[in-house]
Structures are given as structure tokens and as C-alpha cells.
């Protein structure tokens, strides 16, 4: 017992010596890293889900249309990975959502005031990290109260306020996140004075889509840009009292990008307002449900965007 532990210690010390021999070389590492990346290319990042990756690809191809060289670092992990990467200069641009930046990165309490959220993220990003929010792409990826399209047409309703008088007979099914979050279920009931026929069935979000489509539930809380909304012929009730916080998508850019590549400013500005919620849903649908390559879907989309 004693012998083995002293052997282990000796081994550890040897290992320590081996690494410490390399220590003087440590300052050279950044040099090595910068030698590998090409400073004449714009590095485009994205988070690790379909929509973010698609938007990264759209941004990348748009920059390429302006003869800029692009390096893709898509599927980088979540919000924090992208945020750290752009702060550190590992990426130059990625698409972020205003509400995510506001609540997850700046850790401010949820608010439904889109203008206030925009002002806060725009000024704080500039002051703290020298990052700029480019023109919003035009859609809002937030909770979406969904019903079957044929119900919406039969009842002739478009908005949540109009849905209140029918909701008494509806069976809701919600995902856990919607029920738990303070900007979710409880607040929604209060904001619209809603009552449902039963307590919500709390279940997996993906299964709630299926339950709605199969007539086992009458209203669910999905995401406004999910491809499923189009695939299952669902209808999003408009949040006419602006209860849900804004999650507007816009590219976040390092300030020095526009001095290094002046053409990038115009290229990104052209993307502003080009993607509606309906459009984003279709794009997600192409990748998630129709299983088409994101590169192709992005190219087709940009073909319709004025250069």
C-alpha cells in the first residue's frame, strides 16, 4: 500500500517535471494560434441549433456575395460559448437574440418592452465589449401560442385577445419550460385573463406539437419560428398585448470588423428586415423536417435578397 502510493507520487512528480519543461513555451501559444487563422477572413460563428446555424450560413454567404473571405465556425455550443468567442476575437460575427442577451448575458429581469431591451443591449455591448448590434433580421423567436389552423379559421380569430372567449373549452398542453418560467404560463393567464377547460397537461415540448396536431390538446406554447408550425399546419395567435419578451434576431459584430472590412457593413445592413417569422419557419422547416442541407437553403434564400 505504502509502496504503491509513493510510486504514484513519483509518477506525478515526473509528470509535473515534464509539463514544467514546456512551460517557457506557453507564451508562444497565441502566436501559433494566430499563425493558423487567416486574418484576411471574417470568422462567422453560430450556436448549436438549426436556426442559429442557418443564420450563420446566411450571414457567411451574404458576406461572400460581397467578395469577402469567410471562415465558418458554426455549431459552437450555446450562448456563452459564442459570447466568449466574440469577446476574445475568435469569431467576428454571430447572430444573437435580443432577449437572450438581455436576460442570459446581461442578467437583467425579463421585460416585454422591445425598445428598452434593444437600447440596453445595444449600449451595454458597445460600452463593455466594443461589440455592435447590426440591423435586426426581422423576426422574433419567442413563445408562440399555437392552435390548429382549421380552428383559427372556423372561429375567425387571429389574436390572443380574441381567443379568450373560446379558451374556456380548450385543453392546454405545455412544455416544462413554459410552465416554469416567470415570463411563461402564469403571467400569460393574468395578462389576458385567460381560463382553460382543464389544468395544462405538462409534457415534452415536441410531443405537445403532436398532441395538438392529433386533436389531443387544443392549444400549446411552441416557438414562433419552429419548422413544425408550418409542417403541422398550425396557427400562431398574435400576442396583441405584447406579453412575451422580445427575442429579435440580429448579427452581433466586433467593432473592428467594419474598419478591417468596410464592405461588411453594407452586406449585413442589406440583411436587415429580410427574414419574417413566416420566412424563418420555412427555412427551419427545410432543414429540420425536409432534411435539406443548410448551405443550399441559405443560398436559395439569398437569391431572393437584393444585393
Amino acid at each position: 500500500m505504502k509502496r504503491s502510493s509513493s510510486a504514484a507520487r513519483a509518477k506525478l512528480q515526473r509528470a509535473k517535471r515534464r509539463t514544467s519543461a514546456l512551460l517557457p513555451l506557453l507564451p508562444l501559444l497565441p502566436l501559433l494560434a494566430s499563425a493558423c487563422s487567416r486574418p484576411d477572413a471574417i470568422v462567422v460563428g453560430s450556436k448549436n441549433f438549426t436556426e442559429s446555424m442557418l443564420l450563420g450560413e446566411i450571414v457567411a454567404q451574404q458576406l461572400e456575395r460581397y467578395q469577402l473571405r469567410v471562415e465558418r465556425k458554426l455549431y459552437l455550443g450555446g450562448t456563452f460559448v459564442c459570447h466568449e468567442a466574440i469577446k476574445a476575437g475568435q469569431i467576428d460575427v454571430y447572430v444573437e437574440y435580443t432577449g437572450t442577451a438581455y436576460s442570459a448575458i446581461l442578467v437583467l429581469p425579463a421585460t416585454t418592452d422591445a425598445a428598452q431591451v434593444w437600447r440596453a443591449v445595444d449600449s451595454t455591448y458597445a460600452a463593455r465589449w466594443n461589440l455592435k448590434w447590426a440591423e435586426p433580421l426581422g423576426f422574433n423567436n419567442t413563445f408562440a401560442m399555437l392552435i390548429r389552423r382549421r380552428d383559427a379559421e372556423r372561429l375567425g380569430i387571429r389574436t390572443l385577445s380574441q381567443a379568450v372567449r373560446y379558451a374556456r373549452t380548450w385543453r392546454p398542453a405545455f412544455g416544462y419550460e413554459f410552465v416554469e418560467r416567470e415570463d411563461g404560463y402564469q403571467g400569460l393567464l393574468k395578462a389576458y385573463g385567460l381560463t382553460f377547460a382543464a389544468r395544462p397537461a405538462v409534457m415534452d415540448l415536441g410531443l405537445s406539437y403532436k398532441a395538438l396536431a392529433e386533436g389531443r390538446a387544443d392549444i400549446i406554447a411552441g416557438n414562433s419560428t419552429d419548422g413544425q408550425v408550418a409542417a403541422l399546419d398550425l396557427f400562431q395567435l398574435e400576442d396583441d398585448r405584447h406579453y412575451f419578451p422580445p427575442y429579435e434576431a440580429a448579427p452581433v459584430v466586433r467593432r473592428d470588423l467594419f474598419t478591417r472590412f468596410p464592405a461588411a457593413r453594407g452586406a449585413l445592413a442589406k440583411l436587415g428586415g429580410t427574414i419574417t417569422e413566416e420566412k424563418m419557419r420555412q427555412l427551419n422547416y427545410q432543414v429540420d423536417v425536409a432534411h435539406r442541407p443548410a448551405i443550399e437553403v441559405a443560398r436559395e434564400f439569398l437569391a431572393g435578397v437584393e444585393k
Partner: protein
Amino acid sequence: MSFFEYLALNRAEVLSSTLEHVWLVAVSSGLAIAIGVPAGILLTRRPRLRAPILGFANVVQTIPSLALFGFLIPLPFIGGIGARTAIVALVLYGLLPLIRNTYTGITSVDPAVREAAHGMGMTDAQVLWLVELRLAAPVILAGVRIAVVLGVGIGTIAAAIGGGGLGEFIFRGVAMVNSAVILAGAVPAALLALIADGGLHLLERRLDWRR
């Protein structure tokens, strides 16, 4: 908030979810036994059914729970959302150990014993009931034990289809990125599994007729 603080604040809810969980597992295990043991006996009498029935039970095990729920939602009577659908899924997942152990237990009874029973003038039903099932009881009970312990564990997926149980804390905790809430579901579930395993182990020893 730590796990213990959360538990102290929400003990009523944790307790009612635990009872719900016990109910889910009890009902689904009961149904699985009522289907699985006779099915296992049937296989010993109709060997041609062996491949299709065991194949079915095997394949069911490989279906991910969310996919299984997806298939079940549109079905009338056994489908939809809520505890009923969850129980159907749990029964299906519990069948394999029950069918297999019943079959193995009965087929491993010494043929000489079976012949002696027939020679004494026992009918087929008497051989099954008085000889085979008694001798196979420990193996069958081992299958029940596996099915129940598995049921406690996978019973947490009931929460994915509005079926309640301890899985609710796990799903809520994941949605809120809060490990205290996850543990409030996972720890009682683990304790239930240990209790069920220990209890059935005692029963198994009691029923071992060969001792």
C-alpha cells in the same frame, strides 16, 4: 438553493409525486405481470410463437420513450396524453424480463420431474400449477424484480406525456437548469428502486421452494 432546502420547502409536493410514482409503477407492473407471465407460459406450450413474441418484446425495448409516446398519441383508447398513455408505455417496457424469465424458468424444470408428475396421473394443468410454476417461481420472481425496478426508473418518463410522477421534478429541473429540482425527483426515485428491489428480494427468498 440547495437540494435539502428545496426538499424541505416542497416536501408535500415531493411526497404526492412519490405516491403518484408508486401508483404508476404498481399499476403498470401489475398489468405487465398479468400479460407477461401468461405469455411466457404460452411460449412453453407453443414453441412456434417463441420467435415472434420474444422478438416483439425485444424490439419494444429499443424504441426510445419519446418516439413510443409519439406513436401512442394518435391511438384511440390506449393513447392520448396523460397517465394512461404513460402506463401503456411502461407495461410494454416491462414485458421482456417477465416473458423471458417465465419461459426460462419453466423450460429449465428437470424433465424427469415433469415426467414423474405425468406418471403420477396429473393433468397438464396440474403439472403446470403444482410442479412447473412452483419450481420456476424464483426465476419468475427474479423477472418481476427486474421489471419493477426498471419500472421505477423509466417511470420518470411518464412526465414527458403529462402522466405525473417523480419525473416531473426531473423535467422541470432540466427546463430551469436547476439541479436541486432534478435531485428532488431523482433521489426519491432511486430510494423507491432500492426499496422495491429489497422487498422483492425478501419475497423471492420466501418463495424459493427448493430451499
